[in-house]
């Protein structure tokens, strides 16, 4: 057992920390302290800073514009960004830098890698994800968006939903049904297509959430077109490619998420103190329980990081993390509402700023407004990125080996 980092990485960490701090104002508190307008401005500027200093795609190969470093450096960059309360990229980079890019590195042709990867970094292409549909959520394989090959183009018809930041993107990677053969399994016959959104056949509409925000969109494809070569991995391999893409759970979120949640507990303790609730034994007990959860998440994270740095696949175990933190977050935001009492029924101040997904950003003001917003956002945590019910299926079947039910 050794919880220190290799000596060689100490210098790298110091350099990264200095670099990040040099590009921040002296009174920087974290993204959470910015107004929405300031946040937009900041993210745009910040992304450029990261890109210029080779910190945007830390472990992509150099030949495609990355820094060519390892998981360890990626982890360190993530930890330092978390420490300072700055994002690791722009709003859509979660889908492009984190998911599509690495997927192309696995499944893409050489020509696709050379074309798309640099354009992700330069933001010539801004991506969003076209997976879920109104009738295909947990059961992703039941998608109905179809694409047929017509000469040198795919023609796409259908509707995607829950597309994050679709209104900010100019491209989408879209999971489509491209063939149907009743003899084949329902997991075959799909393809992952790369589709430009700036065309007549595509319409993007905002989806307003219970929080009042509209970061999600619906995307309608009506005879939308993309070139025939815009398929990743080959026609019919869409499911496999999609599973690769969804598996890019960065090992470092297991390390950085607990750090963010620890800050949430800190704010909550302060909230209890200033609300005069810190003397209440039941509030103290619940705060201790919240702290206990953060500790467990940190320790689970240490385990995950150990495996990730050793090059092991932590895919299935990520279900354990997700289930734990999403339920913890609901319990903790519920505690916040109880600490606030009546004030929660008419929250004061704006909600969470920045990306704030899934955790609040550093510098978030400690107000009823931010906690009430957080409470609502937390209700989605057990639904997105694989609902708790799906996670329990995965854990019971793939980790414990229990049999699938007949379907």
């Amino acid at each position, binding site marked *: *057992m050794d919880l220190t980092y290799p000596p060689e990485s100490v210098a790298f960490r110091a350099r990264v920390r200095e670099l990040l701090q040099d590009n921040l104002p002296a009174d920087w508190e974290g993204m959470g302290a910015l107004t929405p307008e300031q946040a937009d401005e900041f993210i745009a500027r910040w992304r450029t800073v990261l890109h210029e200093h080779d910190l945007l795609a830390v472990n992509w190969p150099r030949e495609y514009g990355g820094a060519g470093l390892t998981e360890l450096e990626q982890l360190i960059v993530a930890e330092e960004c978390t420490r300072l309360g700055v994002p690791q990229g722009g709003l859509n980079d979660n889908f492009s830098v984190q998911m599509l890019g690495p997927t192309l590195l696995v499944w893409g042709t050489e020509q696709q890698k050379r074309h798309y990867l640099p354009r992700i970094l330069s933001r010539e292409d801004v991506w969003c994800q076209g997976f879920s549909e109104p009738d295909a959520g947990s059961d992703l394989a039941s998608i109905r968006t179809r694409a047929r090959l017509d000469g040198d183009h795919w023609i796409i018809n259908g509707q995607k939903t829950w597309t994050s930041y679709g209104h900010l993107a100019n491209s989408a990677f879209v999971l489509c049904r491209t063939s149907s053969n009743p003899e084949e399994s329902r997991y075959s016959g799909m393809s992952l297509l790369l589709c430009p959104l700036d065309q007549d056949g595509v319409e993007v509409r905002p989806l307003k959430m219970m929080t009042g925000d509209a970061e999600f969109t619906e995307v309608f494809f009506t005879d939308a077109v993309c070139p025939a070569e815009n398929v990743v991995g080959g026609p019919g391999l869409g499911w496999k490619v999609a599973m690769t893409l969804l598996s890019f759970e960065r090992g470092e979120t297991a390390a950085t998420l607990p750090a963010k949640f*620890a800050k949430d507990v800190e704010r909550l303790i302060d909230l209890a103190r200033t609300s005069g609730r810190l*003397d209440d034994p039941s509030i103290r007990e619940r705060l201790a329980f919240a*702290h206990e959860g953060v*500790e467990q998440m940190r320790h689970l994270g240490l*385990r995950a990081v150990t495996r990730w740095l050793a090059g092991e696949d932590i895919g299935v175990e990520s279900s354990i993390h997700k289930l734990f933190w999403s339920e913890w977050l609901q319990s903790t935001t519920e505690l916040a509402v109880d600490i606030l009492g009546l004030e929660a029924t008419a929250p004061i101040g704006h909600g969470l700023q920045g990306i704030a997904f899934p955790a609040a950003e550093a510098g978030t003001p400690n107000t009823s407004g931010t906690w009430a917003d957080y409470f609502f956002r937390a209700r989605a945590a057990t639904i997105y990125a694989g609902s708790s019910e799906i996670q329990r299926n995965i854990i019971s079947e793939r980790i*414990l080996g229990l049999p699938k039910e007949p379907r």
Partner: protein
Amino acid sequence: MYFDLSEDQQELRSTVRAFLEGTASLALLMRRLDSADGYDEVVWNRIATELELTGLAVPEEYGGSGFSLLETCIVLGEMGRVLYDGPFFASSVLATTALLASDDEDAKREYLPQLARGTLLGTVVGAGAERTGAESVAVKASRTTAGGWVLDGRASHVIDGDRAGVLIVPAAGDDGLDCFVVDGDADGLSKASLPAMDLTRPLAEMVFAEVPARRLGGAGCGEVVAGRVAEIGSVCLAAEQMGAAEVCVEMAVEYAKQRHQFGRPIGSFQAIKHRCASVHVAVEAAKSSALYAGWAASGGVGDIAVIAGTTKACCSEAFYLAATSAIQVHGGIGFTWEHPAHLLLRRAVSSREFFGSPAFHRQRVGAWIAEVSAAGPGRADRRLEASAWSP
């Protein structure tokens, strides 16, 4: 950055697991309990002399192997898996810890080598009680005219009290909590076995009537010993709880795969499957904390009192959840005497209460949080220091 057992530690774990499966499995335990024979002394001797586990955490200068607490936690995890009923926890964990914490060189040199060899069994009186201060301890020490010490009072729920050859006894002295060593067969000491809920963890109640005692350490040593025993006892019990919790999950899953109803394995129904998944998550999370606590306590990293509290709370709950769920998944058969599930539940309940229930620890940690917070807003650094987060 390596948060896992080393190869040597994994080897220790497999060796102990294989040994206990062969000599002290749950099946053998149940036979022993039915015959009311008590623990198997042959197996104990092998644990002590062949595997040398009893002296694992005793420094070499006192006749032990000089390993860290983490190795002891590994052994306890394996013992937890089989609900081992020998006196390891009382003697090799509690009594050993008490002596090591005492700073009494003479006592260490006299008793530790014997405890390490397993030839002397020890325990700590009052260990596992929530309150360990002088005002809560019901044993009082007084000076004799000859200049020695005698103890008067009573104590209960003493783990392995009946078979211990030596007792470490925190007792109220003139000014605070002192500590004493008492012979298991001392004059004036009456011991009675309590009918324990946990059949694998014998408990005794004791009455002290002018029992001659040897003082351990200086004035106030009892405070130090009781505190240390509470911390280390919690961390070690957590390790043991996690081994047993693992077995609860394994048992439930195995049953759910084999038991068929309505034409298919019951584990294929989501109600069963999801329950097993929820338990697994709770156990894996608590296990990670138990591993961290064992490591932190070995190296004196962070605030062990706080770490021990959070660890004991989540491990107690996870084990309790696993044991109750195992019974539920097994249906009617899980409720029978013949099935080991009830033994696991009994251990889960006794372990939940020894060294403080989850509620107790959360109240204490909550009070600590409030105290730290009183120093001003955002005292994250103090809380982080206590848990020893890396920079």
